[in-house]
């Protein structure tokens, strides 16, 4: 068996392979060009139709609309979160009837569009006006803002219940068994061992749900609530200036982006014990 006494001389780098101009590459370039042209066009449109007068006139109403959107979403997310606790419990319980009721509730709210639910509450409950007046709830259901809040709360409760259930069930069985082996009572094991681990899993879906709610809340503009979208529609109907919708889009984008960064920071902080 032979072996080399000297080192091999370094070889020159292989010649760079010529990238062929394939059909898919051509299509990709064309698509990129279209996108670029569209974004440049939108930018030029905004620059050209920019007017300080419109900003001072409609800016404050945009801010108030932003406030309505944020209050609506935050209240409904918090109330929905509270409502989701018994729902998630009912969904996981061994009681057949209870879990079926929770399942039907969740299936209904996740299987139908939010806008249909909103119309059902806002227009549909108007049919029961005499009964509602008799109970004294009519003043609430006459108010579009309250109808939107009710619908959003019920809707997000269904989604959050599923998030919670999925997160709790994602905790490995061994954690339950380990807690039992240490002689911890079921309740303490749940709150001190299972729930903290489940919450880390649930954090990301919760953030997604809030973002979805912010974007979904734009539909309340149709039932005469003047949230960000409602104010935009009003401003547009007075000026016929398309850039109003661009302003609204930018504001929604800023909201979502802030939330996304906040969530990334929270997750970074909560999972620092899992990183190496």
């Amino acid at each position, binding site marked *: 068996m032979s072996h080399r006494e000297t080192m091999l001389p370094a070889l020159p780098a292989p010649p760079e392979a010529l990238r062929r101009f394939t059909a898919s590459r051509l299509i990709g370039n064309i698509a990129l060009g279209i996108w670029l042209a569209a974004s440049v066009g939108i930018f030029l449109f905004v620059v050209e139709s920019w007017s300080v007068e419109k900003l001072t006139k409609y800016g404050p109403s945009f801010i108030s609309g932003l406030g309505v959107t944020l209050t609506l979403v935050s209240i409904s997310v918090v109330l929905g979160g509270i409502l989701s606790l018994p729902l998630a419990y009912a969904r996981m319980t061994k009681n057949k009837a209870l879990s079926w009721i929770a399942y039907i509730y969740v299936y*209904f709210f996740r*299987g139908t*569009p939010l806008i*249909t639910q909103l*119309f*059902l509450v806002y227009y549909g409950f108007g049919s029961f006006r005499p009964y509602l007046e008799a109970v004294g709830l009519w003043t609430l259901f006459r108010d579009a803002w309250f109808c939107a809040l009710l619908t959003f709360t019920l809707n997000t409760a269904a989604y959050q219940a599923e998030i919670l259930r999925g997160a709790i069930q994602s905790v490995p069985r061994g954690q339950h068994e380990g807690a039992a082996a240490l002689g911890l009572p079921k309740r303490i094991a749940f709150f001190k061992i299972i729930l903290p681990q489940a919450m880390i899993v649930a954090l990301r879906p919760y953030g997604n749900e809030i973002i979805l709610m912010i974007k979904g809340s734009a539909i309340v503009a149709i039932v005469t609530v003047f949230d960000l979208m409602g104010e935009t529609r009003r401003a547009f109907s007075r000026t016929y200036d398309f850039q109003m919708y661009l302003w609204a889009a930018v504001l929604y984008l800023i909201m979502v982006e802030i939330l996304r960064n906040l969530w990334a920071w929270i997750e970074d902080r909560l999972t620092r014990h899992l990183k190496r």
Partner: protein
Amino acid sequence: MRLIILPQLVRIALPGLGNLWMALLKDTALVSVIGLPDILRQTGVAARVTKHAFEFFSLACLLFLILAMASSLVFSALERWTKRSEVAR
């Protein structure tokens, strides 16, 4: 590509595509706002004409539920079909 990559790719991508389909199905209700005569638009018209708003909007919900159920049945059948080779293991 066609016989080895694609079958495995579909198996992974299908649940995501199914979710996307469901979300889009629900978002189609939004087109009624800009005037397309979809389920919700027609429901609104019927509710205004007959003054039975609750019944008609419940019907719209039911229709969307049926659509969602039907598509989830189709998707689970598709998923079973793409995973038919794994059953033997």
